[in-house]
């Protein structure tokens, strides 16, 4: 990576990278396939209140994992609608984050659960909260020499209900027009994150009484998938739906 920096692209699942290589949007000097690097992890490990998702974990692996299903149902819901089965068999959770699409489906549930990104370079490592990781569409806080090694998801210490909502033009294999995830605790505190509603996936905090103020922090644009007003209006609808489901899960 040092030899070709900063013009290197890392290849994990390849479902975003290959499209951009073919379109000519990315023209790197080198593509490094990280899947066979020693120490590269495709494991999901639970230790001391944290679920660590290795950067090689695919959407299919994630959705099938009983630990993820138990603690992070909203993440399972989001990962199970990314692309098609063929895509989910290759695409990685870490790759979805590194691609930094404003519409990334796994970003909202990861933001609301307080995910931490474990970043490594040849000579250093650091941890960054996910809400500081996204900088702009397609741009992350990663330096050219760095890669994402894993994601840490803190397992909630108190009972929490969570859910994921998404609006698409067609039911399968579509990018989200808007997506949203929330968590709710017994005190009525709500963490909410939405995608395709701002230049980056956005995390906001509030309570069950402040859904309108929370969704008003979105800055959606109009594009081929939906208008600005439509997106803004749907966010509130989705927030109410998501909260209702989260409430049901909290009381279980």
């Amino acid at each position, binding site marked *: 990576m040092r030899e070709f920096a900063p013009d290197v692209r890392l*290849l994990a699942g*390849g*479902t975003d990278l*290959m*499209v951009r290589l*073919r*379109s000519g949007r990315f023209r790197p000097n080198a*593509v490094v*396939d990280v*899947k066979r690097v020693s120490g590269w992890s495709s494991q999901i490990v639970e230790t001391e209140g944290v679920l660590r998702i290795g950067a090689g974990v695919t959407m*299919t692996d994630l959705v099938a994992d009983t630990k993820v299903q138990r603690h992070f149902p909203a993440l399972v819901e989001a990962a199970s609608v990314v*692309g*098609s*089965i*063929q*895509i989910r*068999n*290759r695409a990685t959770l870490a790759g979805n984050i590194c691609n930094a699409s404003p519409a990334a489906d796994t970003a909202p549930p990861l933001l609301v659960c307080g995910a931490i990104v474990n970043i490594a370079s040849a000579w250093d490592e650091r941890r960054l909260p996910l809400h500081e990781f996204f900088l702009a569409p397609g741009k992350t806080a990663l330096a050219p020499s760095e890669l994402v090694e894993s994601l840490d998801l803190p397992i909630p210490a108190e009972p929490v209900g969570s859910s994921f909502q998404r609006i698409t033009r067609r*039911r*399968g*294999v579509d990018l989200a027009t808007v997506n949203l995830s929330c968590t709710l605790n017994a005190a009525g505190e709500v963490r909410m994150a939405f995608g395709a509603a701002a230049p980056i996936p956005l995390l906001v905090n509030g309570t069950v009484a402040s859904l309108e103020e929370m969704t008003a922090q979105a800055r959606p644009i109009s594009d081929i998938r939906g208008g600005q007003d439509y997106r803004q209006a749907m966010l509130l609808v989705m927030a109410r739906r998501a909260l209702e489901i989260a409430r049901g899960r909290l009381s279980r």
Partner: protein
Amino acid sequence: MKLTINGQEIARDVAQHHTLLEFLRDDIGLTGTKECCAEGECGACTVLLDGKAINSCLVLAAEADGSIVTTIEGLEKDGQLDPLQQAFIDKGAVQCGFCIPGMIMAAKYLLQENSNPTEAEIKQGLAGNLCRCAGYSRIIDAVREASGGRK
């Protein structure tokens, strides 16, 4: 690189920028796998890579080094069509035919993971495969037939 394609071990040099799809079609001559959108939307290039359905247009050939690849040509055994292939014929599920190799490979993976899918599960299993002729209902019938059609 070395890999196993349809049960046969193959060792070949490969262009570093070639996709698995280009390798299968142009280098190996297995043209059953189709190229259509070349960006992972249509599923026409679906093959099994180490037992999992993937879009071969989104995988570099070099990534498949050491892997086991199954293409549509690998389903027939000793002159006998795979039950899925036979069901597609019996149900008249093939119109222009271009999407069918990808459809059958996606269905193969679906039935391998879930031997008795509901209609909703079949639709979900084939959501990554587009049929330009829109012959979906007979394709779904064929997959149901091949699964034993219990649900």
